C-alpha cells in the first residue's frame, strides 16, 4: 500500500458559487490508477464526491478528467502522489462530472443507404484508426479554435472523415465539414496529444478532409493564392527585401574547432520575412562550433500546402529539398522553423536526420552567455512542442540567459493556414495569448518559430524574440562586460 496526497476540484452547483479544491490523503495499492484514488475517497472519506466511470479499462470514455492539468482517463493514468484532479474544461455538472451530451449530440451520424456490405480492406484500414474513438472528449476540451469561433471541433472532424471514407454513407461530408468550421483548425495538435486512443486527428482527419475539399474546389481563396505562389516561385512568402539565402554564404565556418556539421533548412519565413533572426541563429551556431552548410536551391517545405490540403505539388517540393541536402552529403539537417522541422520529421521520409536548433544546441552544449536582468516568458510553438516533442530544450537555453516565467502552452493562432485563411480566428487566438502574456508580468516574450514570433508581435506590446536572438544578446552582453573589464584592467 502507498499513501497518495491528492487535491480534487469540488463543485456543487446547488450551493457553491465556484469550484474549490479539497485535499485528501488515501491509501491505495501499488500501481493504482487515478480512478482508484477517487474510489477510495468516495468509499472511505466522502461519499458525496461525484465522478463518472464505467468500464475501468479505457474502453468507454466516461472517466476523463484533468490530472495535473492534462486531460486523461482516470481509469488508465497511474495515480501519483501530490496530484491535482480537476474536471475537463467543459461545462461542469458536479465535482468531476462534466456534461458530455451537448457535444456528443452534435456529432455527425452515418446516413446509410441500407445495403449490408463491408468496405474493402484498404478503406477499412483507413477507417479503423478513426473508429477507435471512445468519445471521451479530452480532445474537445483542449481545442483552442473552438473557443473563438464556430468550429465543431476535433471529435466531429474525426467522425466527418470516417464517414467521408465510408462508401455506405450517402451524405456529402466534405461540404458538411467545411460548413462546420474545417478551416478553423490551426493544426496545433493539442487534440491528438491528449487523445487516449492516440488518434491523429489533425493529420488523419482534418488535413485529409481539406484535401478532399480541395478536389471539390472548396479550398479558401487565400490558400489557393499561396499554393499558386509556391508553384511559381518555390516559396510561400512574397519577396519584400533581400532574403536570407541571397545574402548567406554557402558554408559558415565556426569560430573555434568544428564540433559538428549541419545543413541548414531555412524555411520561407526566416528566409523572406525574418532574415535577421536567422542571422542571429547563425552567429550563435558559429560561436558554438557548429559548421553550417546552406544549400541555395532549397525551397518551401510544403507545410502550407499539406496543412491546407493542397497536396498535388508536394512530391516535387520534397524531392527538390531532399536532393539539395543529399547532394552535399549532409547527414544532419538543422531547422529553426518549428513548422518546417515538424514537416521534415513527420511528413517527409528523409535519408538524413532532422534536428531542431534547440536540440542541436542542447545536445552539443553551449558556451555560457551572460545573464540578462530580465524576466521572460516562453511561448511553446505547437509544431515544436507537440509536432516534435521538444519542450525542455528551449527552456534549458533560455534559463541560462534570463529568468523564465511559465504560461500555459496554447496555440497562438498562426498555424494551419488560419492566419491567412481566417484572420479573425487567428487574431482572436492571438488576443487570448496577450492576456496570458500579461499575467506573467514578463518583459519579453521568447519563442522558437517564425510564425509564432511574427503573429505574437501583433498581439502583445512586449518585444518578441527568438531563443537564439536572446542567446545572442547574452553573448553580446558577455563580450561587452569583458571589454569593459579589459578597459578597466
Amino acid at each position, binding site marked *: 500500500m502507498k499513501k497518495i496526497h491528492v487535491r480534487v476540484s469540488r463543485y456543487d452547483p446547488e450551493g457553491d458559487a465556484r469550484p474549490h479544491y479539497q485535499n485528501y490523503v488515501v491509501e*491505495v*495499492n*501499488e*500501481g*493504482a*490508477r487515478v480512478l*482508484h484514488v477517487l474510489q477510495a475517497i*468516495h*468509499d*472511505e472519506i466522502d*461519499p*458525496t464526491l*461525484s465522478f*463518472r*466511470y*464505467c*468500464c*475501468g*479499462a*479505457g*474502453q*468507454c*470514455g*466516461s472517466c476523463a478528467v484533468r490530472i495535473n492539468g492534462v486531460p486523461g482517463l482516470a*481509469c*488508465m493514468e*497511474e495515480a501519483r502522489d501530490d496530484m491535482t484532479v480537476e474536471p475537463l474544461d467543459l461545462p461542469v*455538472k458536479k465535482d468531476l462530472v462534466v456534461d*458530455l*451530451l451537448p457535444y*456528443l*449530440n452534435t456529432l455527425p*451520424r*452515418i*446516413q*446509410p443507404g*441500407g*445495403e*449490408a*456490405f*463491408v*468496405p*474493402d*480492406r484498404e478503406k*477499412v484500414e483507413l*477507417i*479503423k484508426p478513426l*473508429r*477507435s474513438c*471512445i*468519445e471521451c472528449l479530452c480532445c474537445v476540451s483542449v481545442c483552442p479554435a473552438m473557443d473563438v469561433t464556430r468550429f465543431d471541433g476535433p471529435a466531429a472532424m474525426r467522425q466527418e472523415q470516417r464517414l467521408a471514407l*465510408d462508401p*455506405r*454513407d450517402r451524405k456529402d461530408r466534405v461540404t458538411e465539414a467545411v460548413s462546420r468550421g474545417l478551416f478553423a483548425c490551426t493544426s496545433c495538435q493539442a487534440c491528438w496529444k491528449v487523445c487516449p*486512443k492516440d488518434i491523429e486527428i489533425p493529420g488523419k482527419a482534418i488535413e485529409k478532409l481539406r484535401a478532399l475539399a480541395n478536389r471539390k474546389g472548396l479550398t479558401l481563396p487565400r490558400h489557393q493564392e499561396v499554393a499558386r505562389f509556391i508553384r511559381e516561385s518555390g516559396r510561400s512568402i512574397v519577396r519584400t527585401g533581400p532574403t536570407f539565402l541571397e545574402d548567406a554564404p554557402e558554408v559558415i565556418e565556426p569560430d573555434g574547432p568544428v564540433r559538428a556539421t549541419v545543413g541548414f533548412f531555412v524555411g520561407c519565413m526566416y528566409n523572406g520575412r525574418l532574415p535577421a533572426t536567422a542571422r542571429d541563429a547563425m552567429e550563435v551556431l558559429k560561436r558554438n562550433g557548429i559548421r553550417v552548410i546552406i544549400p541555395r536551391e532549397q525551397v518551401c517545405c510544403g507545410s502550407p500546402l499539406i496543412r491546407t490540403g493542397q497536396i498535388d505539388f508536394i512530391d516535387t517540393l520534397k524531392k527538390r529539398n531532399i536532393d539539395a541536402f543529399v547532394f552535399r552529403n549532409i547527414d544532419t539537417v538543422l531547422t529553426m522553423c518549428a513548422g518546417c522541422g515538424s514537416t521534415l520529421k513527420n511528413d517527409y521520409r528523409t535519408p538524413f536526420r532532422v534536428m531542431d536548433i534547440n536540440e542541436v544546441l542542447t545536445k552539443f552544449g553551449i558556451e555560457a552567455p551572460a545573464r540578462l536582468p530580465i524576466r521572460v516568458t516562453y511561448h511553446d510553438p505547437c509544431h515544436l512542442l507537440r509536432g516534435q516533442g521538444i519542450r525542455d530544450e528551449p527552456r534549458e537555453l533560455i534559463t541560462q540567459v534570463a529568468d523564465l516565467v511559465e504560461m500555459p502552452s496554447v496555440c497562438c493562432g498562426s498555424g494551419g493556414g488560419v492566419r491567412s485563411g481566417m484572420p479573425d480566428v487567428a487574431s482572436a487566438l492571438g488576443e487570448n495569448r496577450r492576456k496570458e502574456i500579461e499575467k506573467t508580468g514578463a518583459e519579453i516574450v521568447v519563442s522558437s518559430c517564425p510564425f509564432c514570433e511574427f503573429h505574437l508581435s501583433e498581439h502583445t506590446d512586449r518585444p518578441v524574440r527568438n531563443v537564439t536572438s536572446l542567446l545572442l544578446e547574452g553573448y553580446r552582453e558577455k563580450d561587452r562586460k569583458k571589454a569593459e573589464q579589459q578597459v578597466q584592467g
Partner: protein
Amino acid sequence: MRSAEVLDCHVLVIGSGGAGVRAAIEASGYGETILVSKTLAGKGGCTTMAEGGYNAVLREEDSCGIHFEDTMKGGAYLNDPELVSILVAEAPQRINDLLAWGAVFDVTDSCDVAQRPFGGQTFPRTCYAGDRTGHEMMMTLIERLASTNVEIENEVTALDLVREGERVVGALCLDGKGEVMVIRADATVLATGGGTQIYDISTNSSSGTGDGFAIGYRAGAELIDMEMVQFHPTGAVYPYDARGRLITEAVRGEGGILRNAAGERFMSRYDPERMELSTRDVVSRAIATEILEGRGTPHGGVFLDVTHLPRQQVEEKLPVMLEQFLKFGVDIREEPMEVAPTAHHVMGGLRITPDAGTTVPGLFACGEVTGGVHGANRLGGNALADTQVFGKRAGESAGRSPRRDSCIDPKAIEAQEERLAAFLDGQVPPSTVIRSLKTAMWEGAGIFRTEAGLNKTLGVISHLSSLRLLARTRENLAECCTAQNMLLSASLVVRGAILRKESRGAHMRKDVVQTWDARNSPYGHTYQSLDRSGIETAVRS
C-alpha cells in the same frame, strides 16, 4: 412526499448495452419508446468492453447445425435448444443489420467479414473488429439509435418494475439527483446485462451489478440457472486495483500460449487436444489448479505469452491489449502477461420464450439478463450475437404489444419513497457491504464449490442484507439500491448452486460424486421465483 415526474410511453427499454439499444431501435418502429440507462447511453455496460468477437455462420464450409452443436456442447447441454436454434440462425442476419448501419468489421482480402477461431468452436466463425468488437457494435448501434425518435433518459437508474395485477406496466427510476421518476409503459424490456461485480475479481463494468436479476425477481419473474457463472480464464492480476480486467480470448485465438511458473505448457495435462483453445470452464479450472497447487507466478497467476507471434500481428489484431498492458508497464510483444481467472459472465437469468417474453406478462428481456441461451457455459463470441438476435426479438415483441389503459399505483410509488427514505437514515455505507459481499462470493461461490461453502456464503449474504444501508445524500440513494440488488443476485447464484447437485459446465461441485456426463445428466434448469424454486429433472434424449 414530493410528486414524482411521470413519463408515458408504448415501450420502455431498461439498459443501453447491445441488447437494450437493439431492442429500442426495433421497438421505435411501433410506437413511442423510452430508453433508460444508468450510464450515458452507449458508454455503460459490458457490450462496449467486448473485445474478441461475434459468432455468426457466414461461410459455406460452416453451417448453423455445427454452430448449434458447438454451442450445446460448450453449454454442457443445459441450453434451451429452441433458443440456441434461433441464435445460430439469426446471428448472420443481425450482423448484416450492423453492416448496413455502418459497422466496420475487419475484412479479408476478398472483401468478406474476417473470422477468427475461438474456444470450443470447430470452425473459425468469430467476426471481429480488432479487439474492440463490442465498441464497434455499440458505436454503430448508438448512431442508428440517434436516427430514431427514441427518447433517451441518460444516467437514470431503474429501481423496480410496477405491476397492475399480473402485468408489468412500467418502472420506477431514480434520476441523477436522486429524485424518483415514474415511467408508464404498455410493454417493458429488461436489458440490464449481467452481474459478476458481485465477485471480488470481475471483468464487468461498474454497471454489471445484477440489477436486472433482482428487479425481475422482485417483480415475480422466474430466473433459471443462476448458479452458472462463467469464470474467464484470463483476467489481469496487476495492478491490484485493476485485477480481473479481461485479457481477451482473442489472445489465445491468435496463438497465445499458457505456461506455469515452471515454464510448462500445462494445458497438455487438461485438454491435450484443444489445448489453449479449450472451453473457458476447462481452461479456468486448469489455471486455478496450477495456482492452487503452487505453480503460479509471483503476482498469483500463470503466464500468457504472445512473444513468439510476429510483432505486427500483435499490433494489428490486439491493439487494445497492447495499449492497456503498455500503460501498466508491460510490453506484450516482448514479455508474457500474467493472468488468472476472473468472474466474467452470468449464463443464468430471466427465463424467456423464443419471443423474449418472460414469465410475467408485459415484461420482455434480452441479453445477459436472460438465461437459457448459453446453458452451463457460454462460448466466446456468442453473447454479442445473443444481444442482437434477442434484442431485436424483444424490441419487436414489446412493440407489438397492445396499447392499454394502465396506470401506476400511487401506493407503489409511496412504498418506493419509503424504502429510499430509510436509506437516508441508515447506518452502513453501501461500499462496505459490497466489499464484504465480493470477498464472500469469491471464496464461497467461485470456481470450486461445496455445499458447506455455499451455505456459509448464504449466511454472510443474509447477514449483510440485514444491515441498514446509509445514503449520505439523495445522490447516494442509487448506490444503496445497487448494493441491495447485488445482495439479491448473489443469493440467487448461491441458491442455484446449492440446488444443482452436480458438476456441469461452469458449475463445479467438489463435494458431489457423479456418475453421468453432461449429456446424460438427470437435471435440467434450476429455477427460482418469488413463488417457487427447484431443479428440473428432465429426461434427456
